[in-house]
């Protein structure tokens, strides 16, 4: 299968939150009781029962209210920080369609992915059935199981305004070209090559997106740099110690060599044969 993309055209979003609801319905996620926090945004954050959340970014321009309707959701990176960070084989995978999926049955709740995500998306929770009292990480699955049955994700299926659409590579190219004509910025995660593509009316920061998305520097150092450094350092150290033992030899106290062997003047290889 070729790669698939979820395209979010912010110019068409009316913040109806149909996608939020369809997501909960398909994934069997419960609603959460929340309090009024002075914003239309609800629930307050992504969680184990909210994989998609519509953002209401409110600004005042020339005395008039200006809305930016964005989304918080997994961007399904080709170069995914969560996969780099995950220590459990198979717990987070990226399929041929480009869907990055956490398998809660394998997830062990280490939370590495939560902090490795360039977009701050995965949330951990012990409340869900899979967790059974133990933390597990949760996020959008790009409805990979619907895709495997030839269906599009629940969110794009339900969107009434066409703000959300599901596209293959050819269709995406057309959408991107059309977006440029309409003066929209194409946001596709830059070097991360995300399978969720935003068409933005304003700067990325107005939609809560990082201007220059990248795997966090400490995560990169931790997962990509330190792994080979650690392995090389270990074997270099081992070789150095063996080389020391063979060439310089152990530091033997006088008693052991005592009256029978010369006391140290030999140095070098002769020490190796001395008993200890």
């Amino acid at each position: 299968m070729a790669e698939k993309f979820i395209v979010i055209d912010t110019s068409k979003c009316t913040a109806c939150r149909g996608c939020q609801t369809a997501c909960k319905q398909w994934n069997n996620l419960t609603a959460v009781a929340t309090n009024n926090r002075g914003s239309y945004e609800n629930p307050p954050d992504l969680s184990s029962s909210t994989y998609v959340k519509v953002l209401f970014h409110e600004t005042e321009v020339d005395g008039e209210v200006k809305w930016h309707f964005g989304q918080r959701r997994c961007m399904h990176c080709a170069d995914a920080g969560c996969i780099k960070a995950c220590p459990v084989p198979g717990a987070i995978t990226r399929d041929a369609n480009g869907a990055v999926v956490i398998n809660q049955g394998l997830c062990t709740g280490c939370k590495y992915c939560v902090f490795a995500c360039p977009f701050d998306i995965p949330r951990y929770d012990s409340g869900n059935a899979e967790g059974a009292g133990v933390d597990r990480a949760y996020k959008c699955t790009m409805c990979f199981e619907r895709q495997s049955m030839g269906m599009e994700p629940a969110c794009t299926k339900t969107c009434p305004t066409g703000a959300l659409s599901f596209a293959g590579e050819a269709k995406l190219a057309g959408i991107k070209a059309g977006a440029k004509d309409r003066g929209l910025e194409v946001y596709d995660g830059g070097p991360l090559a995300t399978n969720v593509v935003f068409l933005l009316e304003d700067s990325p920061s107005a939609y809560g997106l990082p201007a220059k998305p990248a795997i966090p520097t400490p995560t990169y150092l931790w997962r990509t740099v330190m792994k080979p450094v650690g392995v090389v350092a270990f074997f270099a150290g081992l070789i150095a110690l063996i080389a020391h033992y063979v060439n310089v030899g152990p530091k033997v106290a006088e008693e052991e060599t005592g009256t029978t062997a010369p006391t140290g003047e030999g140095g070098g290889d002769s020490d190796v044969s001395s008993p200890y």
Partner: protein
Amino acid sequence: MSHHLIKRLSSGERFFHWLNMLAFIVLALTGLGLYSQKFFGLTGLFGGVDLSRAIHHYVGLVFIATTFIILFQFMRDYTAPGEDTLGTTIKSYLDPDFKGPPAGKFNAGQKLFGWCAFLFGVVMGITGLLMWFPSTVGRGLQQWMYFLHNFSFIVFMGFMMIHVYLGTVGVPGTWSAMSRGTVTKEWAKKNHPAWEGEEA
């Protein structure tokens, strides 16, 4: 033979060193299993990944506690003045003929090792606790905790390899300090001439 022996480590010092060592071995094995998919098989040694993590957490507490206890036990020796320097210590290990200034109970290398073992041990402890309870500091700081835990382990492990080598085959006669608490007079004269130990 006993008149040849000098007391090097008290039973209390040995007890906490053994505890610290065993804790570190368990932590290193469970930690590697929890770090990378390449080492994931190691979690099988400890009854699976969930048990590995629980063991890593609680044995980590033992490691932190013994790391501090050991510092308090040896603080005076780590700060004791000595004529030898790190340079002369390293030279004495690399060149069998080199006769440098005499070392006290601990030579300059051992003092540095003691401080570094404490420092990187504590860094692993603090970062480890924050990995256990990751919602304590902000997201940006938390990301560095994972890296620092990993980095400190590599540095600590490097010091440990040298420590284990010099404590066993590298300097014959040293291991008995760890096992029985005693060393021979000849060993002390060769390795720590400026140290006046008590006869055992």
